[in-house]
């Protein structure tokens, strides 16, 4: 193998085809960047799920004075009912991880704290807020077990799963991630087509060379290698640019803009970036390989 010779062929090929090569680099960078971004959103969703599911609890609101659901027909919850509910919750261990009771006074205190800047606080009396059991589950997905056991029982007004509210939010994020992924996939298809076209133009502009190479008995490998390397170099530069972009997003957008403004949640760490970057490069190399396979088979046969 004459490395010098192959290198000079590749560099002259890239120079001759400069505009097309630039187009390939940019398209690869953009499509892989989108792909990486959608992967990052996915990692973000799972990070947030871990973070929030860990904190969500099932709230069992007990009947108060003004409750009007059928299960509260017997008036406010009695002491016996309350004790029974607590005992039943305790019996659901280990699914039920922790149970604590929040009285009307505690609920009012928390309400005041949450809405301390709002005039609504002045209009709410402690008795308007229900007392409740806050239940932390060892497996938040098994909410139904708790719900079916307690919903509708006398003395219980309502069983609430905070996870349901979060799920809507995560569904929205998941939808966004899917859209980004679809756009990225269509961009990746465009990229493959562009690489195919670029290699076709390169094969055409070098047809004199390749026809002579065939005649003097150069191997397929030798004939195709400069084209493969051209595609690989362009795709590689594009992939590196995309990874640089991803790192940039992590440093600037996530760490410096989002994280300080939204302190109630966690954001993806460098481990996610480290996991996504090789995937992007792999996809980039794969793209070039697929494109090259189709092009070379068609236009550079011996």
């Amino acid at each position: 193998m004459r490395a010098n010779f192959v290198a000079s062929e590749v560099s002259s090929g890239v120079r001759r085809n400069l505009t097309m090569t630039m187009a390939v680099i940019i398209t690869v960078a953009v499509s892989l960047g989108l792909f990486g971004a959608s992967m990052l959103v996915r990692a973000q969703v799972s990070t947030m799920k871990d973070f929030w599911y860990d904190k969500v609890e099932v709230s069992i609101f007990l009947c108060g004075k003004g409750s009007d659901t059928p299960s509260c027909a017997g008036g406010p919850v009695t002491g016996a009912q309350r004790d029974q509910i607590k005992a039943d919750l305790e019996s659901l261990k280990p699914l039920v991880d922790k149970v604590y009771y929040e009285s009307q006074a505690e609920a009012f205190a928390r309400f005041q704290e949450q809405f301390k800047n709002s005039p609504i606080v002045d209009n709410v009396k402690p008795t308007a807020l229900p007392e409740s059991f806050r239940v932390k589950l060892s497996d938040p997905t098994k909410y139904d077990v708790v719900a079916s056991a307690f919903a509708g029982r006398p003395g219980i007004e309502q069983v609430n799963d905070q996870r349901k509210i979060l799920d809507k939010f995560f569904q929205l994020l998941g939808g966004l991630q899917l859209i980004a992924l679809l756009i990225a996939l269509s961009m990746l298809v465009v990229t493959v087509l562009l690489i195919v076209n670029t290699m076709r133009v390169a094969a055409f502009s070098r047809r004199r060379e390749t026809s002579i190479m065939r005649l003097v008995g150069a191997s397929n490998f030798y004939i195709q290698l400069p084209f493969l390397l051209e595609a690989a170099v362009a795709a590689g530069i594009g992939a590196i640019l995309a990874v640089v972009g991803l790192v940039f997003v992590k440093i600037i957008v996530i760490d410096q803009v989002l994280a300080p403004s939204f302190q109630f949640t966690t954001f993806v760490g460098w481990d996610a970036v480290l996991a996504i970057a090789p995937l992007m490069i792999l996809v980039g190399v794969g793209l070039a390989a697929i494109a090259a396979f189709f092009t070379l088979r068609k236009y550079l046969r011996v």
Partner: protein
Amino acid sequence: MILFDRVTKLYANQERPALDEVSLEIEKGEFIFLVGPSGSGKSTFLRLVLREERPTKGQVWVAGKELNRLSNWKIPGLRRQIGTVFQDFRLLPNKSVAENVAFALEVIGKPASHIRKVVPEVLEVVGLEGKEERRPDELSGGEQQRVAIARAFVNRPILLLADEPTGNLDPGTSVGIMKLLDRINQLGTTVVMSTHDQAIVDQMRRRVIELEGGHVVRDQSRGVYGYAR
């Protein structure tokens, strides 16, 4: 060296075969003129020898190998034993004379030291010493064809195929090219040359194979271009 055994070549979408049941044998060291009108099958003959085409029927043997049974990855090995020259020279315009010849060696992976040694030698054989750094467009037609012959011969092939090598040259220049091909033949390389050049064939008095409509209509040792009319 070359053996055609009832070879028929029918191209797709054509009714009449380009070669029809052609059988012939070319010995090692021979100098062959392949003559006949355009479309008589000369180019198809050369393409079959190079394994650029496969015969529709029959067998083609080159250098002891039956080309139908030659697997794809062995085709480059076959072509390294065959030099090829064309009417239109097929040089690379952006490379110098020496680079054009060296290209043929580079692309088959020969080491640089070998290339540095053999390129000047072959340029001397074809009479181009001192013009190594010229570009093809700075050379005359005859000189360009000498570069092409140098490129075809630099790997010391056992067989040289020349497809109308003097077709673009004036008679005086053609004589020089023929002397060169004759010299290469003397060095042991079998030469098969297709041509329309009557004067050259008559002058050289070598074996002439005449094709017409895909058939061998004449195979004559020490022949002339056509029958006396």
